């Protein structure tokens, strides 16, 4: 993922973003949003640079970055799999789904992304698709009434496409 950071235009980008928001500490949130759009996540070094240029303590910037759930401090995979763990999906067995997918991808402990950064697996509290429970969203496409077998098959499709 080094590539993400490796071009001068990218580094220039954060400076550009900072300038666009007048290096105004009150605009920290839109700045972070723009940075995340640019880099797909909030890299630590970039956050330090943002703090430095806005004259804010890095702990404050980190605090804001970890408060809002749409910010992420770890790089996300190319394919994003989101499982609904709202009440309806939970009752219909979303836990088994999650376990099956994580097992197929070899994710353990708190790990959310595969080391090759092809996949990120997340749970969300409700996708608003309770009629389809249990629901899984893969790269923004909703799949309803998914069984563990079907989920693994969907994941395998992607793995094969990437190979």
């Amino acid at each position, binding site marked *: 993922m*080094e590539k993400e950071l*490796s071009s001068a235009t990218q580094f220039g980008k954060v400076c550009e973003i900072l300038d666009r928001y007048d290096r105004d500490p009150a605009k920290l949130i839109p700045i972070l949003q723009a940075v995340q759009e640019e880099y797909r996540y909030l890299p630590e070094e970039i956050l*330090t*640079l943002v703090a430095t240029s806005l004259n804010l303590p*890095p*702990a404050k910037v*980190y605090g804001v970055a970890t408060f809002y759930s749409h910010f992420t401090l770890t790089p996300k995979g190319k394919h994003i799999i989101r499982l609904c763990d709202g009440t309806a999906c939970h009752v219909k067995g979303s836990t088994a789904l999650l376990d099956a997918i994580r097992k197929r991808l070899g994710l353990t402990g708190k790990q959310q992304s595969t080391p090759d950064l092809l996949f990120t697996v997340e749970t969300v509290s409700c996708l608003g698709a309770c009629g389809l429970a249990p629901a899984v969203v893969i790269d923004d496409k909703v799949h309803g009434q998914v069984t563990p077998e079907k989920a693994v098959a969907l994941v395998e499709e992607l793995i094969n496409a990437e190979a």
Partner: protein
Amino acid sequence: MDEKKYLTIDGRQIAIEGERNVLEVARKAGIEIPTFCYHSDLSVYGACRLCLVDIAGRGGVASCSTAPEPGMVVKTSTKQIRAMRKIAVELLLAAHDQSCTTCYKSTSCKLLDLANKLGVTKVRFKPGFERMPLDNSNPSLQRDNNKCILCGDCVRMCQEVQGIGVLDFAGRGSHSRVVPAFGKDLKNVECIYCGQCARICPTGAIIPKNEVSKAWELLDNPEYKTVATIAPAVRVGFGEAFGMPVGTDVTGKITAALKQLGFVAVFDTTFAADLTVVEEAEEFLRRVTAGGTLPQFTSCCPAWVKYAEQFYPELLPNLSSCRSPQAMFGAMAKEMLPKLFDVPREKVKIVSIMPCTAKKFEAQRPEFSRDGDRETEVVLTTQELIQMIKGAGIDFNAIEPEAMDLPLGFKTGAGVIFGVTGGVSEAALRYAYKKLTGKNLANVEFKEVRGDDGYRRAEITIGDNKVRVVVVHSLSNAHKICEEVKAGKADVDLIEVMACPGGCVGGAGQPVYVGMETRKQRAAGLYRVDRNMQLHSSEDNPYVKEAYQNILGTPNSHKAHELLHTHYQSRKRIQDEDVLVSGSDEAQEKLPVTICVGTSCFKRGSQQLLQELTDFLKENNLQDQVAIKATFCHERCDRGPTANVDGTIMEKCSFEALRAEVVKRLRSAVAK
């Protein structure tokens, strides 16, 4: 005539006299309301809900964030309020690592105290917290998030009083925690180890590092001559732990207790403070007469020194090169005691008793070691010595005072007042007066520099000279004066900085205190000690004179520099990775170029430098031959912008110079 306004609390009529909230009115009247997150010297946060009271017509509200209004009817202890407080404490306990028996804070823990007072005998909620690792990385403090109750006191202390903001809330909901940036350890961020966060923390989540066992190890080793030295502020804080009035001077009792613990001699860091006065005042007078860098900042507070190294590298030449009294003591003791005890240098071990957590860090600085042998071996806080004395079963209240040992136990009143804000300036002024006028002071007290305001100015006339002095304590005030100095608007010759509120008497190693009254009484205690001494000017200390005759020569001499002075370095604030800007990391044959984009270099145009270099490489199709990285500090901030071209550091770097160096290196690589 102004009519007084009243409200009613628990049936009593109480006047409103400008208090900011109901809580303050109640406390004024001696009605205690429990709090976690309220401190008169910090902003109001209103999160812990412990200070709930019942206000007629409004129900339960947080008294810390409710303004007093005339006619209000307040009840502080209804059945409902008591139940709610109890639940609040139980919830906190459920999320708290209740290892009270082994917790350092158990005797001063507010949570434990309140649980007892409110009669919490069991916690009805399921314990639920994610275990987090201990942060034991640094020499001064220990952080244990498992004991944090998220009151935010430390966050506001560091932000509002110290002006730094090392700690903040991260995450949210049940994942909230109070941590340094990126969840790093304190060692890897901009913390200056003042310990004020630990002082204010109601639980054991942040505590001074405990080194009592190290001190015992030294004492238990018969090969060592282990001596103790105590700082000025320690003597007026110590007695509090034994029920004595705040500010009582217990120097003699501490001396006796230390001897009973097995220290072969007991000395006074105040002796070294006297030396500091002579060296620092002499340095100041030289800067004035020889046109040196002015204003001069004091350098006896190690937390302030680290702060300056991290945040104001451009002002480092303004810092006095004098070591702190602790570090001067270490050097002098290691010079004199081996002869006195007839043992090799490394067999003399010094245990320094300090009101301060930053001194633990200072003692570990490599400048204060020789061949791996530390000048000050162990630093104990006042609290740790209290623990040691209690643990050894010494009856401190009954112990007969003893005198300190000579020569390093002799001091003057000028050294003693080092422990309070304004004291260093006053001591230096006493010295300067004698030096410049040749006369003895009729009245040694310079009341102009005394007081408790965080930022004080005074202009002192000495003979034909005027000395403009600024005295600050708390680093938010240091920040203020530093900015003024940088802007050329400070109008000052001598600046005294103490990181802790009130100076060392308010240090984080002292018995835990809240509010300002305690530290003011400790300060008054030190001034009393000064008044009761025979000598009030450091140069009159006969053993200081002897030290100059036998060892040091004259003030600021070569030998004095070797033993009593030091040097500073810019320091990186956040330890982190460099950002790769262009080219990839792996290719070994690429020319590595790093450009600093830390605050100071950033302001001096390093960003443009970076841009110009990448543009230049692109235009000339060289981008594959150079790996450019941005780093956050080369630790030479005073000479920025800095660049590092494969090991060659370029200071005050212009694009032309950088381009020339890069081209030169690429050519020679091709030639090879």
